[in-house]
């Protein structure tokens, strides 16, 4: 079933509210007027009762009949029945009076064949227990007609006002929801090409401003990721273009004329180097793509970090000894992580650190075990990195050293991006700080439970 639109829902709610309120008011009014009529009738009948009692104080006399007729003639819609104490009907002022009348003392209402009566039962002589009974009947048909007409009017009012508020409400809701429609129009216009569209936050009603703000923030994040993604694809094409064009040129030039076998060998070797570089690039990009899709699922094996770091330092020892760089490690911690992934992440950091450490410098790895989690820092002495470049270090293909151009070195500039992916896959964070002659990569990892 299709859900009702917001404006129709609001319109219906408005209509229902108006109907309930006007119905309540109408019922109250009709009850009040009915009560008012009853009160008027009571007063009238009470007055008449006094007159009748006076006229009939000596009921046996013939004059009393004249006085009675006189009394009754003053009020055309009033009829009277006098009943003896034995229940015998003594007198009816009109022949059309109903046979059965209510016997309850006091005021009551009776409907007989289309005529409505207000009936008052009272003894003729107040102090005599066996007094004849007076039954006064007041024809109130016109009152009842009035009340009935009023009830119809109330129903009509309820219906019409509900209809009117429904229509007005629909209009009001529609115009009240206009900012929402504007939002949806902008949202439906958003595509990969127009991620820079934003909702005007300042002239939004306060209720929608927050939504507009989150919506804009979402667009901003999408835009950012999309920019990175398209930059990544452009970078891939760019990175692959250089080795590909080398391969093409070299192979074609080699084949243009017969050459000594040694030249072919040389050409193949040179091609092999380009190809290996490309294969490494493709493998690294696949790794990052997997990370982007959340497919890097680290195994959780208990690790002694000091042991892992020492193994890595031993691995890098030949490289460090070459430039007489000191490699040290301090601290230890246990954690659950994927051994191969962790080694890969740290190896990228160490490799990076060693490349930027001047001869006879120092590379230090520190492991700090804290209550919240653990911190791993890899720091190297050296010139440091310009603070403005720090956030971009983990971007793919980013190279802090502008002298090192694409294709010209064996480093594609994906190492730090891979390290970041691995750290994130373990639920951690990595950042870089630089200053006072040190560059420091800080990894913060939550403890495996």
């Amino acid at each position, binding site marked *: 079933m299709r859900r009702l639109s917001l404006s129709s829902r609001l319109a219906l709610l408005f209509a229902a509210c108006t109907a309930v309120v006007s119905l309540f008011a109408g019922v109250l009014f009709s009850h009040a007027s009915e009560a008012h009529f009853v009160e008027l009738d009571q007063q009238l009948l009470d007055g008449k009762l006094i007159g009748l009692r006076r006229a009939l104080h000596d009921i046996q006399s013939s004059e009393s009949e004249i006085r009675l007729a006189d009394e009754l003639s003053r009020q055309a819609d009033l009829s009277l029945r006098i009943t003896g104490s034995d229940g015998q009907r003594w007198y009816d002022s009109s022949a059309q009076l109903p046979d059965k009348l209510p016997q309850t003392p006091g005021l009551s209402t009776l409907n007989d064949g289309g005529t409505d009566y207000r009936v008052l039962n009272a003894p003729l002589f107040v102090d005599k227990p066996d007094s004849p009974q007076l039954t006064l009947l007041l024809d109130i048909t016109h009152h009842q007609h009035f009340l009935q007409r009023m009830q119809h009017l109330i129903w009509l009012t309820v219906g019409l006002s509900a209809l009117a508020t429904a229509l007005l409400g629909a209009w009001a809701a529609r115009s009240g929801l206009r900012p929402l429609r504007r939002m949806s129009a902008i949202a439906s216009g958003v595509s990969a090409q127009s991620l820079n569209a934003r909702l005007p936050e300042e002239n939004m009603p306060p209720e929608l401003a927050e939504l507009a703000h989150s919506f804009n923030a979402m667009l901003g994040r999408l835009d950012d990721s999309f920019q990175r993604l398209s930059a990544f694809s452009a970078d891939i094409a760019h990175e692959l273009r250089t080795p590909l064009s080398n391969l093409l040129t070299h192979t074609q030039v080699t084949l243009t004329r017969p050459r000594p076998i040694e030249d072919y060998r040389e050409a193949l*070797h040179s091609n*092999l*180097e380009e190809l*290996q570089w490309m*294969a*490494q690039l*493709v*493998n*690294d990009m*696949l*790794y990052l793509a*997997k990370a982007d899709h959340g*497919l*890097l*699922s680290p195994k959780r094996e208990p690790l002694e970090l000091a042991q892992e770091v020492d*193994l*890595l330092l*031993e*691995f*890098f*020892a*030949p*490289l460090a*000894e*070459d430039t007489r760089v000191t490699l040290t490690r301090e601290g230890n911690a246990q954690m659950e992580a994927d051994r*191969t*992934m962790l*080694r*890969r992440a740290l*190896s*990228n950091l160490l*490799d990076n650190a060693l490349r930027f450490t001047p001869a006879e410098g120092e590379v230090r790895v520190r492991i700090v075990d804290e209550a919240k989690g653990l911190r791993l820092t890899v720091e190297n002495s050296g010139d440091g990195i310009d603070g403005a470049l720090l956030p971009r270090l983990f971007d793919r293909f980013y190279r802090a050293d502008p002298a090192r151009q694409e294709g010209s070195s*064996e*480093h*594609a500039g994906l*190492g730090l991006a891979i390290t970041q992916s691995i750290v994130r896959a373990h639920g951690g964070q990595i950042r870089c700080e630089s200053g006072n002659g040190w560059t420091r990569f800080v990894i913060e990892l939550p403890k495996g439970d």
Partner: protein
Amino acid sequence: MKLLIVEDQPKTGQYLRQGLTEAGFNAELVADGSTGQQLALSGDYALLILDVMLPGRDGWQILQAVRSAGLDTPVLFLTARDAVEDRVHGLELGADDYLVKPFAFSELLARVRSLLRRGSASPQETSLQLADLRLDLIRRRVERSGQRIDLTAKEFALLEMLLRRQGEVLPKSLIASQVWDMNFDSDTNVIEVAIRRLRLKIDDEFPNKLIHTVRGMGYVLEERIA
């Protein structure tokens, strides 16, 4: 030594066969899974190289059939998909090793040799030797032309690996994995430096060089008569 390659991509298959044949193996190539399975079940092969995606029956099904027939022929998987589940699946089914495309042929060759060696445990050796280079496994000493050479523990392990697999081209990734237990792709040049430092001690003072670089492929320890 008979090897079976089941690979449906003609170029890949032919180059693999050529490379393995030239490396001294008797390599057979089939392109579809069903024929591959029939041949594999004959039990005539010392090693199976299976592509995962194959027409007829895929690599996993062949592996399953081979294992349920009670054959323990070593199986090396080639896959274009680097999905973790793939590796886990393959290894659970009883694959012995896997390579993700694109891979280097030198890497494949080194793995093939490792797998073939695995079955035949060589007798306990006490020393390894090539030309005038001698490595004493018990006393952990190295000498060349009777001259004692001091090596670090890792240099010793590296030289031992080169000696055990003399004549084989060893790719850098394999050396990193075997000597340092670093099992990941890395573009670091640690291995180059380590080899250079080993050369300095083993080769530099001697006219007859034993460690050779095979450009773009790796390193080999062998005696080359100039």
